[in-house]
């Protein structure tokens, strides 16, 4: 069966957080953009949280791990060589479909880790290059919070007030004030007041299962409707196999397969990869040609390397008071950045942030929640009653440093439904991370005890928390040690862009989505400014 061929102007691969922002930005400037997405639309009405067996669904079709979920659009990610497992979603909206929408920003120092602290790699851009784009993104996504945080550069007033602290959060805020540790109400893409067709958060808990009333943003309900209204084209069910190049080494388009198995070739003037820190290197490493024998644009051998995931140790405190920890958006209410910046008196470089999580239903609690362990057998029911509703968990997001052996490769021994070789994640904790984890667990434990917890339970890292995928096609000024330049363009292939978390030169110690969306918006502006589209 011959491939069907067509031609477009700008071709974006991946309709997640970055792809949506980039497409919208170019479309708003009148540029013709087409996006290919291997998954389908997820209707907010399909949120599973209204079902009696919603917790069962959480373990299965809404599992964040594609190897467990195994939806039609999911591709295998071999993870037996990684102590942290992948957590992504494939569909319109990408991983914002199952994210918890916590949106702190990078700090200025995060872009200068090599210059300031002698580790990792500097970005070729600064916080100040992105500040305007953070603001644009906050407006489109809808951001709750409270401006005036002295721990970060100024930002504009937030769209709505912050999410409520809740009973456990209030206790912890009191404890932070007693300890004189810096905290601030978190920014989040969760509306606390109605805005257009999106309703205010009603505190139901499991944000990552989808938000039936649209309080929690995902780009399928924010960027995409606007981008499509501006004339952008979105094709779903399009599994991209590889990026094509001509004899001069320039990208000419992509080869993709539709759900019927029909092969397509779509030619484009510019190809933009936005498939996340695993999906993007996977496609580019599969795009081998005579001109690019190690994968497209990979003369530096940096493609797939420097995978950063944010090790996340978790400490759960148990309170005598019923703090109703099943209520409220589950991942955040306040942000603790007391230990964020580098401190030479510590035995590790860089730092971490802490956030208070909640929203654990009965089944998740019984299975041990984030870090406690409930016995089976005779003591089970008593232990369940002790924990359920009575816990708060402090999650510690540790800055991850880039290491070339932490990486994404491809493994042709396993393929997806279209015959495309699987990605393999290889990841181990470095010594710096181990020391930081130890410090973070100690801080989180001290905080919970100060807040009144009568016992605490710690896990050194959450093995299922591979949702921050960064660094695998990193940005830099030197083509020998980076994959893209400051405009997100490949050093080797000038009309190939990477705009997702792959381009992060450093990981910061915060959730990466607003930063990668700001990077994508900026890349769109630079493409237009340089008259390349």
């Amino acid at each position: 069966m011959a491939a069907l061929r067509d031609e477009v102007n700008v071709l974006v691969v991946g309709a997640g957080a970055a792809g949506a922002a980039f497409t919208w930005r170019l479309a708003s400037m009148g540029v013709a953009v087409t996006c290919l997405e291997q998954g389908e639309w997820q209707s907010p009405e399909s949120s599973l949280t209204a079902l009696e067996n919603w917790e069962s669904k959480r373990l299965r079709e809404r599992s964040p791990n594609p190897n467990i979920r195994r939806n039609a659009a999911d591709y295998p990610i071999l993870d037996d060589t990684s102590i942290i497992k992948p957590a992504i979603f494939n569909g319109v909206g990408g991983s914002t479909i199952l994210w918890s929408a916590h949106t702190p920003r990078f700090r200025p120092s995060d872009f200068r880790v090599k210059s300031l602290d002698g580790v990792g790699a500097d970005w070729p851009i600064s916080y100040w290059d992105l500040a305007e784009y953070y603001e644009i993104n906050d407006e489109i996504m809808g951001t709750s919070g409270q401006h005036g945080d002295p721990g970060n550069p100024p930002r504009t007033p937030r769209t709505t007030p912050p999410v409520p602290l809740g009973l456990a959060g209030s206790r912890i805020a009191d404890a932070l004030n007693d300890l004189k540790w810096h905290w601030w109400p978190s920014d989040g893409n969760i509306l606390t007041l109605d805005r257009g067709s999106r309703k205010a958060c009603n505190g139901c808990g499991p944000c990552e299962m989808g938000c039936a009333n649209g309080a929690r943003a995902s780009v399928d309900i924010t960027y995409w409707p606007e981008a499509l209204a501006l004339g952008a084209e979105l094709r779903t069910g399009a599994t991209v196999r590889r990026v094509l190049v001509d004899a001069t080494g320039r990208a000419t388009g992509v080869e993709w397969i539709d759900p019927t198995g029909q092969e397509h070739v779509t030619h484009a003037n510019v190809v933009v990869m936005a498939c996340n820190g695993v999906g993007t290197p996977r496609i580019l490493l599969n795009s081998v040609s005579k001109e690019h024998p190690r994968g497209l644009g990979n003369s530096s051998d940096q493609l797939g390397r420097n995978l950063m995931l944010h090790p996340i140790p978790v400490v759960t405190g148990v309170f005598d008071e019923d703090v109703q920890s099943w209520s409220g958006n589950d991942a955040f209410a306040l942000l603790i950045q007391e230990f964020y910046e580098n401190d030479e008196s510590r035995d590790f470089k860089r730092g971490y942030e802490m956030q208070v999580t909640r929203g654990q239903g009965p089944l998740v609690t019984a299975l041990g929640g984030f870090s406690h362990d409930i016995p089976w057998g005779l003591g089970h029911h008593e232990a369940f009653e002790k924990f359920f509703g009575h816990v708060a968990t402090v999650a510690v997001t540790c800055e991850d440093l880039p290491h070339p052996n932490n990486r994404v490769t491809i493994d042709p021994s396993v393929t997806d439904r279209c015959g495309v070789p699987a990605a393999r994640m290889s990841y181990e904790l470095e010594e710096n991370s181990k020391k930081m984890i130890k410090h973070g667990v100690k801080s989180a434990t001290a905080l919970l005890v100060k807040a009144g917890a009568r016992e605490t339970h710690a896990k050194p890292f959450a093995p299922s928390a591979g949702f921050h995928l960064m660094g695998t096609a990193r940005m830099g000024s030197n083509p020998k040690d980076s994959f893209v330049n400051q405009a997100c363009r490949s050093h080797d292939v000038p009309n190939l862009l990477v705009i997702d978390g792959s381009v992060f030169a450093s990981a910061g110690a915060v959730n990466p989505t607003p930063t990668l969306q700001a990077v994508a918006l900026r890349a769109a502006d630079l493409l237009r400014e340089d008259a390349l589209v």
Partner: protein
Amino acid sequence: MSTLLDRFTNDLLPGNDHWPAASEIEVGAVMQELASTDSEQKSLFDRLLDFLENHKERLALGETLEAEDSELFVFAKVLAFEAYYINPKVREVVARRSMYANRPPQPAGFLVVTRRVSPWNEGEILWRSDGTERSGEVLIEQKKDPKKTWTVEEIRQWRR
């Protein structure tokens, strides 16, 4: 086989004055139904049944499985807990024994009971300069008036 599954699941989730034993709400049958939706889970469930059959003379099936095949035990425990805690009778007990409402999270949501607490250091600028002139300028401005309301236009000027 159901007797063996009942014995095993009751080992994991025995009953008491408040909570039903697993066998009372047919957890074994629900486990089988849940596992049947996925070929890998079905295969593991069949392994569980084989294990129980091969060890039926043992009194403590839970302990035996945990000791002899920890991977299979973890699978069986998660599946049994899943079957138990999605049962309406168990959800009723959860609601009676806590402040939780016996209903799904949506559409009603939950009231988030809270108190108002303000950060202790609202006026002390804490972020670290990146060494650029822009950092210095913004730090000075922010220190002058930490609660100033900034506009997008002002922030746009920061771009190089």
